[in-house]
């Protein structure tokens, strides 16, 4: 049984990087992906993300179910864009090539399709990196390393606890689900999709509330033990930045600069194949 989206120890150079390095990479990567609509750069980024994902030895079962949820959101997002602004594409690219008429003000245009394709690609530049970041970063090491680069240990600790709770909450969820099934609520594939969503929701909400309660309890318990009393604390999971870390950070920064310069060289975020 494998836990979803939680740290799993493996021996790859990505796992050995400091959590801070991965965070810097991840943040810059997101910034670039959000800023640019240059299809060429986006495609390059997708290829690179998939490559990194591959060498991090992340398995499908660690991320598969979350991926499916993200896909549902993606579809929702794409449909919503079309519903609310069917002419966004023409607006951006300045031309209007109607493929076919749908109804009322809704025309399917090539520009709109291209624009939405870019949105989809953006998702795919980020998804593998988020997954990779979560499953290759040891929460405790991450908190320690953040502190090493000067971030207050309270912040580092908060993040690391959040990461650490991912598997706990999942375990809890599975147990609650089993208990419900044992009492006669079918939640496996045998139940209808709608019923499954309904019964899952009836578990998730109480779970969120009880997790909130727990945050309160844990923070009280930590305060009782003197957490946050002093400016400094000792860490035993800290990793010094090594050669690979500097190389990764260097590469990320250079990549971000080049990508952004390239994107904005013609004065627009968009790559326009229509003119």
């Amino acid at each position, binding site marked *: *049984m494998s836990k979803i989206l939680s740290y799993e120890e493996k021996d790859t150079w990505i796992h050995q990087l400091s959590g801070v390095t991965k965070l810097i990479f991840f943040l810059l990567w997101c910034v670039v992906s959000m800023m640019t609509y240059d299809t060429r750069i986006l495609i390059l980024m997708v290829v690179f993300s998939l490559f990194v994902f591959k060498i991090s030895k992340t398995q499908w079962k660690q991320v598969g179910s979350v991926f499916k949820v993200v896909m549902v959101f993606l579809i929702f997002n794409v449909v919503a864009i079309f519903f609310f602004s069917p002419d966004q594409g023409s607006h951006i690219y300045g031309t209007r090539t109607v493929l076919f008429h749908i109804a009322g003000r809704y025309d399917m245009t090539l520009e709109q399709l291209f624009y939405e394709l870019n949105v989809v690609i953006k998702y795919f530049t980020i998804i593998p990196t988020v997954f990779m970041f979560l499953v290759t970063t040891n929460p405790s090491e991450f908190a320690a390393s953040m502190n090493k680069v000067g971030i207050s240990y309270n912040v580092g600790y908060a993040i690391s606890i959040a990461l650490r709770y991912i598997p706990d909450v999942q375990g809890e969820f599975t*147990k609650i689900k089993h208990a419900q*099934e*044992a009492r*006669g*609520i079918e939640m*496996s594939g*045998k139940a209808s999709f709608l019923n499954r969503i309904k019964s899952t929701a009836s578990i998730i909400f*109480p779970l969120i509330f009880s997790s909130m309660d727990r945050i309160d309890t844990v923070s009280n318990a930590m305060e009782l033990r003197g957490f946050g009393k002093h400016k400094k604390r000792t860490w035993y999971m800290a990793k010094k930045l090594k050669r690979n870390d500097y190389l990764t950070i260097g590469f990320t920064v250079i990549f971000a600069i080049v990508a952004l310069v390239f994107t904005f060289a013609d004065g627009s975020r968009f790559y326009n194949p229509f003119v």
Partner: protein
Amino acid sequence: MKLNNYKAPLREWFNQADRKKEKDESVSALKVEDLYFSYVEGKPILQHIHFDIKKGEMVSIVGKNGAGKSTLSNLICGFYKPVKGRILLNGEDVAPLSIKERGEKIGLVMQSPNQMISKPMIYEEVALGLAVRGVPEKEMKERVYETLKICGLYPFRNWPVSALSFGQKKRVSIASILVMNPEVLILDEPTAGQDYRHYTEIMEFLKDINENFGITIIMITHDMHLMLEYTDRAIVIADGHLIADDTPARILTNEQIADKAYLKKTSLYDLAVNCQIDNPSEFVERFIAYERQQRKLRIEKVKENPAHVKDIIL
């Protein structure tokens, strides 16, 4: 302690006290055959577990923290699949049955009540199992109220679950399983966190449904008193292995087993040894049987005259 004056009378009592009656039911309710399980490959949690629990038995499963007791109950209910071995319910392999299908016969009260409770109100929570089975409103209400009374929760029936203490939540989870009348009832530490009064009430009720309706009851426990007083048989698990399957008295008087499973030897045993009774475990057994009889008499007295209820419980 000075025992000299009591040695002779105690030996005499031992010789005339009734032997415990052996149950000779022979229909198997829950049988486990050569069961193996591990969460992580290469780290076995349970190995070669085998036992056969007969219909109408009341059995306890004991062992130190992390021995694999809760895991075993989860395997029986189908939350996990065994690596090897079979589990038979009424003589039939349960492997093809889903969790829900097993749940129709087996009721499991899990160790942590928080994992079982999903409704905001106590009434709704206890009624949940009946509601999904389509029991009519009126019958449901009756059964839920009755169960709430047994579990000492009736005054709280309209309370939100979040306002309850741990012990009360545990009782809510027991009630929500009891209400469904399972054939086999598995309770993971039913008495943890219970005060003496509620402990007695719940245990008496379990004993009652066990004796009068033939419901098979399996209790996972750390409470040696519970094991001795209420169950006729105990299965001991240590480090994933079944190391004993015998009467509680014999297990508690077997030093080797008690040490291995971190069980506390009963002081009755020491008493018997000190008084030079040749068969200390038999002594413990007869003593418990005698005590049970006394308790039964007390309870019968109360049934005739309910005003005495305080006398036995307090």
